[in-house]
């Protein structure tokens, strides 16, 4: 059961039938966390990347010709800094970072406007992660993309995003500009989160970690869903659920007692 509304480019797409939604998907593409599981191991990279072009039509309603497909694939390889020869190879022949480049290339085949990236760098080693984060940043700049970048690593989030939405147990608890949210967090959960990130600095000030764990979404706590772990919990929090309220321009928080600076 789901409710609410998803509006994409002024159009409500929440309840659109598949037939209408499919052409719209050209404009929104996705990159997944597991770079290996998201590529069919039995097909060559060129084949995988060409599929969206075979499925979808050009803006003027014509089919993509093999010539335009081949041309587009070479363009993409250049875009994600992979050799052209990669098109002839299979997914298992690549390293994790290269496979993630392929996934990004596939998401970009149809020149989407929105890319949803679900933990695209969390399975990568730090040194390779930096390459992919840079690639995301470069592509965003050169192609004018919009990202929904889903991640749990706050440092990566800070590096890549303009705005941040912090979620806890299925709801947004804080939303605002990256620097505001990460440097002046107002929600106790965001504060705990920024303090809990292990930083590569020896002797950095340590804060007492949050108690307990995320409750089961099956029976959510009453009132504010964070109240069971909140260090500043008050009686009101146990009964009344806070709504996302604006506390500053471009900064919204779902907390009865936000920490204001």
């Amino acid at each position, binding site marked *: 059961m789901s409710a609410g509304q998803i509006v994409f480019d002024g159009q409500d797409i929440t309840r659109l039938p598949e037939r209408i939604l499919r052409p719209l998907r050209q404009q929104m593409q996705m990159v997944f966390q597991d770079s290996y599981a998201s590529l069919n191991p039995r097909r060559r990279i060129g084949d995988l990347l060409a599929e969206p072009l075979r499925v979808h039509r050009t803006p003027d309603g014509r089919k993509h010709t093999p010539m335009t497909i081949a041309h587009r694939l070479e363009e993409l390889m*250049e875009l994600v*800094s992979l*050799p052209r020869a990669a098109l002839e190879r299979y997914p298992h022949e690549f*390293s*994790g*970072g*290269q496979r993630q480049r392929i996934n990004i290339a596939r998401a970009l085949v149809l020149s989407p406007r929105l890319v949803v990236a679900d933990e695209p760098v969390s399975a990568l*080693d*730090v*040194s*390779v*992660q*930096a*390459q992919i*984060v*840079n*690639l995301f*940043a*470069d592509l965003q700049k050169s192609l004018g993309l919009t990202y929904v970048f889903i991640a*749990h690593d*706050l*440092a*990566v989030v*800070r*590096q890549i995003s303009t705005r941040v939405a912090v979620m806890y147990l299925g709801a947004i608890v804080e939303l605002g500009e990256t620097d505001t949210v*990460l*440097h002046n967090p107002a929600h106790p959960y965001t504060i*705990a*989160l*920024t*303090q*809990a*990130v*292990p*930083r*590569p*600095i*020896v*002797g*950095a000030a*340590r804060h007492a*970690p*949050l*108690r307990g*764990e*995320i409750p089961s979404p099956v029976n959510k706590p009453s009132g504010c869903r964070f109240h069971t*772990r909140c260090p500043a919990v008050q009686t009101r929090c146990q009964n009344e659920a806070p709504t996302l309220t604006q506390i500053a321009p471009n900064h919204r928080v779902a907390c009865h007692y936000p920490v204001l600076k």
Partner: protein
Amino acid sequence: MPTNTPSPPLLDVHDLCVSFTSRGQVIPIVENLSFSIGEQEILGLVGESGSGKSVTAMALMGLIDAPGVHVSGFARFKGQDLLGLSGKQMRALRGREIAMIFQDPMTAFTPVYTIGWQIDEQLRAHQSLSRRQARTRTVELLGEMGVPDPANTANRYPHQLSGGLRQRAMIAMALSCNPSLLIADEPTTALDVTVQAQILDLMRRLRTTYGSSVLLITHDMGVVAETCDSTLVLYSGRAAETGTTQDLFAHPQHPYTAALLASIPPMNGPRPTRLPAIPGAPPQPLERPTGCAFAPRCTYTHASCLPAPPPRFARLARRIRLPACCPRKGIPSPSAFAPAQHLFCEKPHAVPFPHRAGGSSSLIFRCNAAFAGGKGCLQDLQPQTRANTPGGRWRLLYRYARRGAGSCRGIRLRQVHTGALPAAA
């Protein structure tokens, strides 16, 4: 915090090599690894995936029994060599003296027995306790690990617990026989950030409450900085650098350590427009270069990096920084390298591929301002790239330059190829 006492280390690993044989080829996984852990010390073993961290731990625990595996070297633990023990002797030690925590507590526990049953079993295997005594101790341990309502939790099955609780139960099991050494293989990787902070807190307290030393295996430099006294950085199965965590983070000596630290996005200060990423990926064990394993990705490669592996540690003196990086004549140590200043060739162009040793070719470089202003730095030039594309494939060819040769803005160098050349792409 351990002090600089002359007491012998608890575990002294020397020249540990692990290799597998596959299709008639010997594949080295861990090469000449030496390190030691003192009493109540937390040593961090850091490296990227495939660098041999877990294999090292498994070798120490005697848990590698794949056919064709070859483990050599020695690991002195309380007067005996772990690598030379029989299966029976090892079993008596494992769990009692050396215990291990795994990354995924779900698969490390048997799903068909309760948590309490499994901890009882380990207690009774090593100590003569009655069922009731064992259970009392189990409940006590779970309580000490911060498990709420330990008596009831002991009666639950692994799938009924959350990830954090499972990991606490795992640590309780590992500590049940008061081991002197705890090997923790990525203990917090599968956990949420807030729960990770709790578990790290617990690990730090272990050495005072239980007197255990910890070998903490992780890929997260943040976890190391917060938890470990000393750190060993592994790269491609070889030790790259070791030292106290404080020194290593403040002044990394090995270019790999420096690059690894630099590639972590900062949480404070201005946001860099681009992260200083390390180009390429670690080599596969079979494709390790004959020289320094990091040379193909290193910004500071020197002629001496190529032919032979870096001199391995003759004997690892404790708490002395030993980067396994070749000495570079007349070159400041990497800690003094600020990458931007020392990127001597921004855009090497017209780089030919050498096809045979002994041939020669000329190269043209354009130099950046930092280089143009410097003197006598030609030895540091790196004709290493074929493609100029950012993030493209970098390939080290070789380096050869005469001090003071060429002009500053555009330099033509005659390259003489000597020794073995890497295969052209």
